[in-house]
């Protein structure tokens, strides 16, 4: 993967997005996008660069916002970062583009109460069926 070419194309397609590419160990580039542009960006990556290997989706509750990181890899790592508001975080699903994203979205949804619009199986994934507590990776509840 030619990371410079990828960044250039992303910049051309989403000129209003901050992008702010930064290199992060180990051999990874992190790019910031707005939530609405995330799905189109993934579509671009798939169509232009055949970049389809999604390693995982990390969800983080930073206290101020919910960050979603989509980690892609093709020889080098590329992470797409987006922020969602803490109350009622919504984003669009990617499973029609990358079926392998299904499990990662379910986990993020379960652990952080993120809603992925269009995801058909919002059943419990790792948590037990009778889980009553708050989402485990959210900051509000006590450990």
């Amino acid at each position, binding site marked *: 993967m030619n990371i410079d070419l990828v960044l250039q194309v992303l910049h051309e397609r989403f000129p209003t997005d901050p992008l702010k590419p930064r290199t992060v160990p180990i051999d990874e580039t992190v790019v910031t996008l707005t939530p609405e542009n995330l799905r189109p960006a993934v579509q671009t990556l798939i169509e232009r660069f055949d970049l389809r290997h999604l390693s995982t989706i990390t969800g983080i509750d930073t206290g101020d916002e919910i960050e979603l990181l989509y980690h892609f890899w093709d020889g080098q790592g590329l992470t797409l970062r987006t922020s969602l508001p803490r109350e009622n975080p919504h984003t669009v699903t990617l499973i029609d583009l990358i079926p392998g994203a299904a499990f990662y979205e379910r986990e993020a949804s379960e652990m952080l109460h993120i809603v992925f619009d269009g995801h058909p199986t919002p059943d419990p994934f790792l948590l*037990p069926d009778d889980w009553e507590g708050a989402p485990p990776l959210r900051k509000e509840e006590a450990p």
Partner: protein
Amino acid sequence: MSRITIPIGPQHPALKEPLSLLLTAEGERIVESTLRIGYAHRGLERIFQNRNYVQNIHIVERVCGICSHVHTTAYCQGVEALLGLQVPPRALYLRTLLCELERIHSHLLWLGVLAEHIGFTTVFMYTWRDREIVLDIMEELSGGRVAHAVNAIGGVRIDIDSEHIDSILARLDDLERQIDTFLGVVLHEHTFQVRTHAIGRLTAEQARRYCVVGPVARASGIDVDLRRDEPYAVYDQLDFRVIVAHEGDVWARTMVRTMESVESLQMCRQLLRNLPDGPLAVRAPRHVPAGEVISRCEAPRGELVYYIRSDGSDRPARVKVRTPTLPSLAALAEQLQDINTADVPAVLAGVDLCIACADR
């Protein structure tokens, strides 16, 4: 024909760890499958946030029993990158040695499990007996057969002398002869072949759609191996082949894993013969400067990803673990479509499930 629901799990002889797979069968053909995991979920990602970086090494080791060392390798590697540490070469060699020994042990274990599932108990007994050679070596090196506690942030905790190296090399020669026998069985034994050929086929396109990794992907023709494509530890100094097959069935996966064991054995020899002198670790500060890191390793089952974010304290703000079994589980439904009930254990085994890894 009436439909019958066969529950595979949470407790079932075909499963080494709990998961629930509800199969709907029409006669002997599977028409539908429903997967539920999470029976071994321990909430480790939450636990990581409540412990400091050193304590977390011990927890990371226990994500999985079979690939415990590669988990700590990925984790320590990540934290070392955040700290900007230069791990001494001798430590990296020993770390890699244990990674490869673990790969051999995992693949032999897996071969035995697959054989047992297709009713070939003899191969199961033989592979697990020969696996003891590797377990003994690992126990001599680290003190533990399963949890080695070899990695520390900044290096390793173990050392090895030349006498020990010679003893290990001799035993690796014995092991190589045994693995050659198993390769012979895989290639030539008729009943093994009829039970594994054309079973659980996954095309390259399907594998890519589900982001499958590791030997399952390589058996479907996807030529990716992190040890060659994004080398970590000392893999850039080792000479080895990446084994790729194209049939995408259980037999191809068996071929890939068995031949990978042979390659791992060669790598162990190279590591032992070229072991450099020097210190075993560098001192690591307790507080890790703020930052984030993505550490990838090639576990026996494929790409293992650790994302660690630090906030400057002595505890990580977030540790995200993605184990290689997860995408294989995602692709399982496709492999189970329209197959014979009798082939289900072979397919499950062929995928090399590690549920403890998947559930965390």
